[in-house]
């Protein structure tokens, strides 16, 4: 059971225990983490589950795919380590992952 910590824009941490194979959007929604809208329901077709991967984890999480990259282009809060949470699948290698939430979702 990998654990993920989501840190809101105001600095409030939400630690969540997730099942391996779940994506980070679903884990947030299932556990009532605020600040993720997930309008499209996890199909990489909006940009409302934008998260900023903590620099310490960015190498292990990896860069966005092509379609994801296009969607991230819609958000002005994009950073070097931005990802869509629905496209990051959790496994034991990501146990302890830290994700920062932007101020807004587009």
């Amino acid at each position, binding site marked *: 059971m990998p654990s993920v910590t989501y840190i809101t824009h105001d600095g409030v941490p939400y630690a969540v225990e997730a099942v391996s194979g779940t994506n980070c959007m679903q884990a947030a929604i299932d556990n009532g983490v605020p600040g993720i*809208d*997930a*309008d*499209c*329901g996890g*199909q*990489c*077709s*909006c*940009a*409302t589950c934008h998260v900023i991967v903590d620099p310490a984890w960015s190498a292990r999480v990896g860069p966005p795919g092509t*379609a994801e990259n*296009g*969607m991230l*282009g*819609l958000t*002005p*809060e994009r950073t070097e380590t931005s990802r869509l949470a629905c496209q990051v699948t959790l496994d034991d290698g990501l146990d302890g992952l830290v994700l920062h939430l932007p*101020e*807004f979702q*587009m």
Partner: protein
Amino acid sequence: MTMRNMLDCDPQSIPLEHIDVSQAELYEHDRQDAFFTRLRAESPVHRCAESAFGPYWSITRFDDIVAVESDFETFSSEPNILIADQPDDFEVRSFITMDPPEHDSNRAAVQGAVAPQNLKQLEGVIRERVGQILDGLPVGETFDWVDRVSIELTTQMLATLFDFPFEERRRLTRWSDIAIATPELSGSALVTEEQRRAELGECLQTFLGLWQQRAARPEGFDLISMLARGEATRDLPSRPMDLLGTLMLLIVGGNDTTRNSISGGVVALNRNPEEYAKLRANPGLIPNMVSEIIRWQSPVLHMRRRATRDVELGGQTIREGDKVVMWYISGNRDGDAILDPFAFRIDRERARHHVAFGFGIHRCMGNRLGELQLRLTWEEVMKRFEFVELVGEPVRTRSNFIRGIAELPVRLHRRH
């Protein structure tokens, strides 16, 4: 070629191949739902061989719409996103009718104007204006909510975003109304093509004048100044049809959609008094209600794509070059994606899961501004009025693109 008038047809028994949901009269009389329910169940990817707009495919299920939206390589937005083609000798362009990479740089030039960070600055101004508009309304007598509230509020907002001369703001409303309101472009009959071109010509001239002023003072944060600064857009005046297309996109996108959702909310709450009661008991439901209103109204009926290759979808073979029309009004009534989709519920779970903004790279740029205007409108309405009572039938717009409400007779009852 004789085509059947859908209003004369029984949606249950008409042969599937005869169904033509491009007929604007369907939306004028709010009779589209039964046709789309039948298509979603029996022919979710449906080919209409004969219509006023030529042959086209209808995509009617939520998930299929998301799939088409997400694949811009197979489903191109060029040359037009209306079911209709544009006249060859009057073809406007803007980023909504472009594919990447051209789309990306053109959209990026103006996206910042409606980004949430900027909207935070605007919230106080919008709330104050909503309050002024509402305080000027007559109480206890019948008036048109569309003209006095929906149009006034969205036009003021648009004038602010463009930094357009405020006292002339209703010209923006007019340009928005006539932008595609011909029989050939949307099934509307508001203007002739000749009249449309003449008025859009005035629109272009007016904005070229503003552009000259703004280009000379490059620090402005209005949309025109941003276009004049943007690397991909600063030469727009030398490409007048591209400039006009961009203006039309921003004017219609920032006006018709929110206007009709503000009106649609009044209709929905009046038709569902138990939901109005929930709202009075708990105005904290307003942010959630806003999403439900947008789904319920579905102010943009469709967007069109063009297949760039032969492709299978829903068991059908769409051929290269075919028109592919995504009907948002249908996706937003799809019971496989939305629980009890014909019910208006202001406390609906996952209310944001609707297709009214579209998905993919063309997803509505001003979605957060639209939501903000709706939220502030209802927050200020609830502070003042017990009941915005609908006292007659709404007059709906004849168009296959905009699901509009042209007139809405209401009477206000003050809070006790």
